[in-house]
């Protein structure tokens, strides 16, 4: 059976949606003729032509603002903001225009717009090409944030994002681009946004995470299982809105919650999740905490970056420490 690579899943989703719906267009810096700096979008320009798939100037204000204007005028643009770190330059169009239009227009029109962006650390790209932009956008009403962890999900969720009638930030973790999984027999259909998934069942602790963290948590779960500690691992898949029911159901079973986020401790989605669960299920919680990075920029040097990120070893050590102490 053939394998599906994460980057290929993204490409295929774009390709199929471009083919399916004339209104879909795709543009960004170096995405068309060159096929993207992460080699994610080769061939789309050839397949769909320059009117539908094109390279832009280095102009994040224009790219995002134009995508917004196009989206409210009948197109369904997908844009790439190469690195999530550049999203501040695209933020005005998203926060002040796209996210508010549906509401402010009194529901005259929605803004079907997807922003793809490569995010995350661990690739030695340094402090300004490795960030997680989730916290910058998680408090923006009207925006959705999607963060897949597997190739199949990447394809299904990107199709879902393109068909969603709201502005969607679609984050692709750089350390996932090269992962593969077997291609399913059935075609991969568009997924509905906003639904988390329990990817491992366990009774001792609920670990909620996303993107790369899912893989790290699953690996940690295997190690901890040998110690008799069984993690329930939840892949959020969508970070805004959070699928609270799925998390609460699990926490009501395990009575313990660890929110695992690749990003600074302060102000991330993990904090929001901990707050929600504490508000909703205070009496059922025996323990609740976060494992994140420190409140510092992301270092370049390999030993510094490795120590900085909450990878498998850090999760194992952290859970052991917490559950043995408890």
């Amino acid at each position, binding site marked *: 059976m053939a394998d599906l690579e994460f980057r290929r899943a993204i490409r295929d989703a774009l390709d199929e949606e471009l083919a399916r719906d004339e209104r879909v267009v795709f543009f960004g810096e170096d995405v068309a003729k060159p096929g993207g700096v992460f080699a994610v979008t080769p061939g789309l320009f050839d397949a769909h032509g320059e009117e539908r798939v094109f390279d832009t100037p280095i102009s*994040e*204000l*224009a790219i995002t603002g134009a995508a917004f*204007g196009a989206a409210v005028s009948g197109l369904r643009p997908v844009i790439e903001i190469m690195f999530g770190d550049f999203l501040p330059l695209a933020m005005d169009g998203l926060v002040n225009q796209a996210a508010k239009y549906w509401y402010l227009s009194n529901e*005259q029109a929605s803004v079907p717009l997807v922003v793809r962006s490569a995010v995350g650390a661990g690739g030695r790209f340094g402090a300004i090409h490795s960030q997680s932009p989730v916290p910058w956008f998680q408090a923006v009403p009207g925006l959705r944030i999607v963060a897949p962890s597997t190739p199949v999900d990447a394809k299904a969720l990107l199709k879902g994002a393109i068909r969603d009638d709201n502005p969607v930030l679609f984050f692709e973790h750089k350390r996932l681009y090269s992962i593969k999984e077997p291609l399913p027999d059935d075609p991969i259909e568009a997924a509905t946004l906003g639904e988390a998934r329990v990817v491992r069942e366990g009774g001792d602790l609920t670990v909620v995470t996303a993107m790369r963290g899912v893989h790290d948590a699953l690996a940690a779960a295997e190690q901890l299982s040998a110690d008799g500690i069984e993690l329930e691992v939840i892949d959020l898949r969508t970070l805004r809105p959070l699928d609270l029911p799925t998390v609460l159901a699990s926490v009501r079973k395990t009575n313990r919650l660890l929110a695992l986020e690749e990003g600074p401790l302060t102000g991330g989605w993990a904090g929001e999740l901990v707050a929600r669960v504490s508000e909703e299920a205070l009496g059922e919680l025996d323990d609740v905490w976060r494992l994140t990075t420190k409140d510092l920029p992301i270092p370049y040097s390999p030993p510094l970056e490795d120590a900085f990120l909450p990878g498998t070893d850090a999760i194992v050590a952290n859970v052991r420490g917490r559950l043995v102490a408890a």
Partner: protein
Amino acid sequence: MARATTNAAAAPAPAQELSGPAQHGLELYRRMLVIRRFEETVQSLFQKGEVHGTTHLYIGEEAGAVGVGDVLKAQDRAAGTYRGHGHALGLGVDPQALLDEMLGRASGVCGGRAGSMNVIDLAHRLIGCFGIIGGSISAATGAALALRREDGVAVAFFGEGTTNHGYFHECLNFAAVRKLPVLYMCENNLYGEFTPWEDVTAGEIEARPRTLGIHTETIDGNDVWAVREAAGAAVERARAGEGPQFIQSMTYRFVGHSRSDPGAYRKPGELDRWKQRDPLLVARTKLTGELGVPPSGVDEVDAAVEAQIDAMIEAALAAPYPDPSLPVREFAPQAEHAP
């Protein structure tokens, strides 16, 4: 997303036995007058506590929006600014719905949600009024990507102060490179808020788009016929595939930038000089002179508009406020998408 094909607001122009150009000129005058009276109404209702927050009035600049609005086709669209009442009315937005919006009423064009700075009315080709400097520019640039498929043109209104913004440069280059059908309508009223344009702007504004290979022109923005002619030609060049167009429309705002503005920055005599070039005055002179409209014909329009506005005020004040207890949807529900 239906699009209206008319610029006609409520009251009809007097249908005497006037020539085509006279008839049309009178209609242009009427539209400008509606904007003028609308803005005066907003100002006085603001003082009475019925309009809230802040407003940016278009008084003195009416020829711009009316001239441009008059040359657009059904498939075209425009984006205005926080100084957008005129842009909206010029496109044919219903003045009653617009006034209701100013008063925060449920019958407002956006149900009272948006207010003065953020009006949206797609049915009348108004992509929106943009409270963020440059927002209108990027919105129109993007709209042009869509509209070109149906032979449409997008217009961005913005002030001269906005030409110092990153949005301006990025979008004009983007549009030039992609040859987008968009008209960049720069309304140069000499000030950005309280700051004279020359204090914060290097070089000549018109030279900026020109170096991007964009067709540019500087016009008398207080003469609605001049605006109409320039905008009409520009829009048709854009439609014909000649790429983005730029017009610098020289004009002047007779009132403060926003509600509390003593206007200390104005140069001595400047306001008076510009008032002599009041777009309404310019139009009346041409109508009664060159176009042979009897003064009474213009007076009739004045009276009709007066009556229209009076009725509007009454209706607006009587309109109900939106009900805060009604549920509101954060997200647009999924529409059907053909496979």
